[in-house]
């Protein structure tokens, strides 16, 4: 095993372990902490797989922004911390389904002989990724940006809530 390969397995083990912990935590803040660990591991795995730009962006976007947002919402809403372990029965049906899917997936992955060859180490520069992103996938980028804009507008609308409407109405009367 090469050092890079060892790193990959290390981060994969860390990430999967943290993911299991996330799925089983009662306390939402603990779950968020574990989820951050998952995303840091995913970022590291991406970097090991020769994708440093997506890896760092994963850390910036997932761990640095989205999970902070989750934490912010937990703190804002004061979500209760549950006590005790989750009832294992609740996991029964989803876990069975997931296990069946996984078995099928592993069979498919194992059936492919080309997937058994060890990948060569490579490193893509951010400039090359950016070029291909804005050159070949410009439509997708535009679509995602429109999606983000729509989400932004929706969040604004939701966030204004009743008080915002009241203030707007009061302002309308005053004007």
């Amino acid at each position, binding site marked *: 095993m090469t050092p890079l390969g060892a790193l990959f*397995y290390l981060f994969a083990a860390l990430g999967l372990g943290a993911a299991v912990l996330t799925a089983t935590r009662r306390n939402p803040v603990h779950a968020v902490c574990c989820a951050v660990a998952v995303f840091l591991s995913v970022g590291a795995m991406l970097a090991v797989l020769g994708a440093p730009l997506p890896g760092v962006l994963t850390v910036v976007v997932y761990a640095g922004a989205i999970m902070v947002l989750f934490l912010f919402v937990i703190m804002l809403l004061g979500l209760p911390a549950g006590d005790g372990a989750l009832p294992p029965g609740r996991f029964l049906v989803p876990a069975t389904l997931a296990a069946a899917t996984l078995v099928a997936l592993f069979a498919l992955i194992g059936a492919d002989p080309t997937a058994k060859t060890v990948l060569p180490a490579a490193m893509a520069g951010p400039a090359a*990724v950016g070029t291909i992103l804005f050159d070949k996938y410009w439509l997708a980028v535009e679509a995602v940006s429109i999606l983000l804009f729509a989400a932004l507008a929706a969040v604004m609308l939701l966030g204004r809530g009743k008080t915002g409407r009241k203030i707007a109405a009061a302002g309308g009367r005053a004007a």
Partner: protein
Amino acid sequence: MIVPLSHVLAAAALLFAIGGVMAAARRSILLILIGVEFMLAAAGLAFAGAGLAWNNLDGQAAVIIIMGLASAEAGLGLALLVHGRRGGGTDRADSYHRLGEES
């Protein structure tokens, strides 16, 4: 030399499955959202691995597009949660059934 593509795909599949189980089994909207994020991240991981396997950068571009999707999803989901909670709701997914039958 790193790892075989099959191992990358296996790791991604496991992460996807954990995210899926989490989204299905947990009651809190917050944790369901985290589960969905896991599934999206797992997809990105598979894309990056495939990109390395076939030595082209389309996979990495896909990861970045997925990331944009995921942030839109998380932002909107959390805004809905805050909105619902402000309207007197809880963070339990089961309690949002106003459009369903009376129960």
